[in-house]
């Protein structure tokens, strides 16, 4: 009798163990690549905002896989760069361990690309690898030393609600005056969380230093003393900002404030602002303009890790991004600037962008940008 109970107990244990094992096997079985015979799955990591995620998942990737059916794509969106450090660590750790990495394309802030160049993490692009690269203006390629492919561009502009703003400011000084005269009706996002916020901050800095000093390759922390008048300007503006100096988390949060008419004016990305406007997410009275001197803008670059397991596919996708089909999507889906030279775009497109596509100011180089973000927290919102 006793041994019957013993066996019964063991059976229950065995059943429990079997269940765990089964679940494990199911789980492991569903991991890994679900590729049919002969298809290659490319893994794209795109850091940015949701309008760019939609550009890829709803426009780019379906068209690309239609054109090249031997490729499937796996899209990972990294919102506001959350998780970028993890991706960089993955690529670096794979290189150090001598493995391939399952990141085939990465669109991210130039800072990571810069950090990775001495470690040999990226593929250096050229016409032999990406034939369409000849259509891209040379200086935009040189800016990333040929390690990143600029496939679209955008700049930050001033978005304002013309229902409340009858005479929009045309210059940065006029903008500052307007903010002081209309307290609580303007804000910019925390520069850690979005480029539209970085644009306003750098505009304040560039006012006193000029745009070129900090956008080259050189980096000298001692030069940052020149930023002091910029910090003072921004700090003085704090009481006039929305909610007594609150800077929300991300580009979209600011657009939502504009939509809810909590603020009347803000610095916003041209492509994102136009996109939201076209989808009815902003008031009909919303308008956009570029001020003088212009706010920053940049080309967004995609980089291919040298350790990518699917180099051929990654380069094919890169090349496809420069085709007229893809570049038109950049214009139509997200109102971005093309990555290829404007002269390759139709006249109608060039006309449409007359108002906003004036020049844009250059971004500070990534090391300076990192310090700008840190010092903004210290000097402007950090308090005495």
């Amino acid at each position: 009798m006793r041994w019957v109970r013993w066996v019964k107990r063991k059976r229950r244990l065995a059943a429990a163990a079997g269940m765990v094992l089964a679940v494990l096997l199911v789980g492991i079985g569903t991991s890994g690549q679900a590729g049919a015979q002969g298809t290659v799955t490319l893994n794209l990591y795109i850091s940015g905002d949701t309008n760019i995620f939609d550009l890829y998942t709803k426009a780019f990737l379906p068209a690309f896989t239609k054109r090249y059916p031997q490729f499937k794509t796996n899209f990972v969106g990294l919102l506001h760069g959350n998780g970028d450090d993890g991706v960089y660590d993955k690529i670096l750790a794979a290189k150090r361990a001598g493995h391939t990495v399952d990141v085939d394309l990465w669109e991210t802030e130039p800072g990571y690309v810069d950090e990775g160049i001495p470690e040999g993490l990226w593929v250096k692009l050229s016409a032999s690898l990406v034939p369409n690269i000849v259509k891209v203006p040379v200086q935009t390629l040189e800016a990333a030393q040929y390690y990143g492919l600029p496939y679209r561009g955008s700049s930050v502009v001033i978005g304002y609600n013309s229902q409340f703003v009858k005479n929009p400011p045309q210059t940065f000084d006029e903008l500052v005056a307007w903010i002081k005269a209309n307290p609580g009706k303007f804000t910019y996002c925390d520069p850690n969380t979005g480029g539209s916020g970085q644009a306003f901050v750098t505009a304040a800095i560039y006012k006193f230093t000029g745009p070129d000093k900090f956008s080259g390759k050189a980096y000298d922390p001692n030069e940052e003393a020149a930023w002091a008048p910029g910090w003072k300007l921004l700090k003085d503006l704090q009481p006039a900002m929305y909610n007594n100096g609150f800077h929300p988390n991300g580009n979209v949060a600011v657009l939502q404030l504009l939509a809810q008419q909590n603020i009347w004016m803000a610095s916003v990305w041209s492509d994102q602002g136009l996109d939201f406007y076209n989808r009815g997410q902003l008031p009909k009275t919303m308008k956009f303009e570029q001020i003088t001197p212009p706010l920053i803008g940049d080309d967004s670059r995609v980089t291919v890790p040298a350790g990518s397991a699917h180099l051929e596919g990654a380069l094919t996708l890169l090349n496809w991004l420069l085709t007229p089909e893809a570049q038109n999507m950049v214009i139509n889906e997200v109102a971005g600037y093309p990555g290829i030279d404007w002269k390759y775009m139709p006249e109608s497109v060039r006309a449409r962008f007359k108002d906003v596509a004036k020049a844009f100011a250059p971004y500070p180089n990534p090391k300076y940008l990192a310090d700008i973000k840190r010092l903004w927290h210290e000097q402007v919102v950090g308090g005495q």
Partner: protein
Amino acid sequence: MSAAPWYWAVGGMRRALGLGAFLAIAAFILGPLFTLLVWAFAGSWLFPNLLPEFSLKWWSYVLSNADVGKAIRISFISAPVATLLSALICIPAAYAFARLEFPARRALLLSFLSANAFPKIGLYVSIATLFYRLNLMDTFTGVVLIQMVNTLLFMIWIPTGTFRGINRNLEEAARDVGAGPLRTFFHITLPIALPGLIIAALFAFLAAFDEAQGTLIVGTPNHITMPVMMYTLVLSYPQPVGAVFSVLLSLPSLVFLIVAQRYLRAGYLAAGYTL
């Protein structure tokens, strides 16, 4: 069990106070969730309207997202597995901590605090490098391991307290009539400890389920869990989208809550914490 709330002898006013306090607590706990629920059905909601214009359009927007279903599936498989495995290795260890004397027992018990005390940000590169060497990146096993790390604290400390609270006399009596140690454990100790262990498993599951920063590195691109996806949807889409997603993701948890009520009621933990 003492029946009358004896120290609330002054009935009326105290009872009214109690009701008021209860309503305040209920409003505090349910208010935010209710707000989110309303947002999920809001087409557009502007101040100072108390209620929005209702619409279901954001539901189709979210539900048409294929990644959502995938993330849900992965979370609801990996977290239970992590909890189960954690229970398998931690409960025997907890029993050892509670009943057996061995060198450095106290120090080892304390060391499990360290799992939660050191901020994981400082550990990323090392964990990633280790996982690469062991071929654990972007594997189900890797995700489970990362989630298990979050469960260790709960699966050791709560069961240890539970086991410690069980009267030794019960176990010794069983031994005295000839039962072996395993039999004593399964027939005497475990049934008494079960409610406490279930509580531990509950907290462990929730810790594994909520894990985001580690699973982002280890699980991408094919094993994205719900918390990782939640950041994206909640931060950068219009409010209703985040609300819809929140409702979708809370539903299974709330089912879990109803099921777990039986074990959560304080009465079941009676045996767990006697000194």
